[in-house]
């Protein structure tokens, strides 16, 4: 792969309304590429691994900025940066889980421009795919990672189907735990999708990591009041504490009454192509005391059914330990 300093020549539009942006996105379809913060975009273009003809820069759209209170929770504009999420009082006071997750993304400079929508809609970080190889996800007919010598220590434990890439989004796990909803605009109108259904695995669609299709624009993320001010736990383990993507991450929201867990949502990141809800753990801890004993009893449930590849067995004890910490409530 040759590496280039500059991007190839292409067009650029800077619409200032969602209507104009949707019009451009549907008109351009596969030839266009939506840009928010651009931090997942420019590497693709510099490497010539993706070749859109026209960029649509969404940052001029004022209605996609800001955090608003709604009748049932809050609505976060798609263009809100990850740094803004870590500082916004509505989020830090009620949904600290999301603020913690956003604060662990990449580096300060990337969080300063990277948007919430971009973080959830970013593409797979499998290095073979990123290199521009013609793998399943790129439309080809083989997987380079799932081979005897494939470098797959960062790849999936669960629900693989030809592709073994994992979900790279830190905020995605938090949003699934918080039962967030994604607001998507297209030329056929607006639709609202649960965060859990927003992410799709390779068994459903091997070319896309989310339900977003050409012509769709993710305009906002809604978080219901249900988990506001719940007890939260977030931890991300990566090879490096800055820049790097998660090896495994855990996001948990719990309602605890007199030390007893009444309800919970536990979601693991970077173990499959989508944020993985740990429903077996959730039901096992319902009605149990939130303590070390409960954590020790249930943690192994989290990795049941895991099918590790050659070099990612370490993710199983890692995941188990993170679930243990999330259930007991401290590192």
């Amino acid at each position: 792969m040759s590496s280039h300093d500059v991007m190839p020549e292409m067009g650029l539009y800077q619409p200032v309304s969602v209507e104009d942006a949707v019009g451009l996105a549907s008109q351009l379809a596969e030839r266009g590429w939506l840009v928010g913060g651009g931090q997942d975009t420019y590497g693709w273009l510099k490497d010539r691994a993706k070749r859109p003809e026209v960029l649509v820069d969404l940052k001029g759209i004022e209605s996609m900025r800001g955090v608003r209170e709604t009748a049932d929770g809050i609505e976060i504009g798609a263009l809100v940066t990850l740094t803004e999420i870590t500082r916004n009082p509505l989020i830090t006071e009620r949904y600290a889980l999301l603020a913690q997750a956003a604060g662990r993304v990449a580096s300060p400079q990337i969080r300063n421009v990277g948007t919430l929508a971009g973080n959830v809609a970013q593409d797979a970080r499998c290095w073979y795919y990123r290199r521009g190889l013609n793998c399943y996800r790129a439309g080809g007919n083989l997987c380079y990672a799932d081979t005897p010598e494939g470098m797959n220590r960062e790849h999936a434990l669960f629900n693989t189907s030809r592709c073994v890439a994992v979900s790279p989004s830190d905020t995605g796990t938090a949003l699934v735990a918080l039962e967030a909803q994604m607001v998507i605009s297209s030329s056929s109108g607006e639709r609202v999708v649960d965060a859990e259904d927003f992410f799709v695995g390779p068994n459903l669609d091997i070319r896309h990591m989310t339900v977003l299709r050409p012509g769709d624009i993710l305009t906002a993320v809604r978080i219901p009041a249900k988990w506001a001010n719940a007890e939260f736990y977030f931890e991300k383990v990566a090879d490096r504490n800055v820049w790097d993507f998660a090896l495994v991450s855990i996001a948990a929201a719990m309602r605890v009454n007199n030390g007893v867990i009444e309800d919970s949502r536990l979601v693991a990141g970077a173990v499959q192509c989508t944020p993985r809800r740990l429903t077996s753990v959730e039901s096992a801890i319902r009605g149990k005391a939130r303590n070390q004993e409960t954590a020790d009893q249930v943690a192994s449930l989290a990795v049941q059914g895991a099918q590790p590849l050659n070099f990612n067995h370490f993710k199983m004890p890692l995941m188990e330990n993170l679930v243990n910490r999330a259930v007991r409530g401290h590192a």
Partner: protein
Amino acid sequence: MNPKLTRRRFIKGVIASGVAAASTSLWYSASGQNRPAGAVERLLTINVNGQSRRVDVAPQETLAHTLRYKLGLTGAKLGCNRGECGSCTVLADDVNIYSCSTLTHEVKNKAILTVEGLRAADGTLHPVQAAFIQELSPACGFCTSGQIMSAVALLKSNPRPTRAEARQALSGNLCRCGAYDHYLNGVMRASGQLS
């Protein structure tokens, strides 16, 4: 070697002549006809270091490219060109960003500050620059302008950071010499917490 012809001056001379050549060739691809709403104009006026600079910017051009190769501001270095090292860090409206991973058109309405714009009109160095010299922060110096800009951004929003806050704020800037503690000493000195 001719003392007047330093490496830096030679490179800047090449850049200046390149600008002249580029501006005469006028490689406009879009003629302005039949373009839908929102298509960008190439001729921009951008605010860099307090000055309005008129410059011809391609749609896909990064801010680092515009600064270095069109405006001759070579303080922002290109290390990785992928947003993974921090040597191209500049401020846009007082927020530190990677100029290699920002399109110039994205920040055309923001005030850009590069390391060249820190010095006062009378030549006095910015407190961060002075502190970095006093603490011998740079080793090879390649990452230094980026480290300075991240430190300046931190002190604008948090004038007396703790060492842990400074470490966090500078965590998006790699230093391959490993002079991280020297840079942190510099930040603590610049914020008046070391004497």
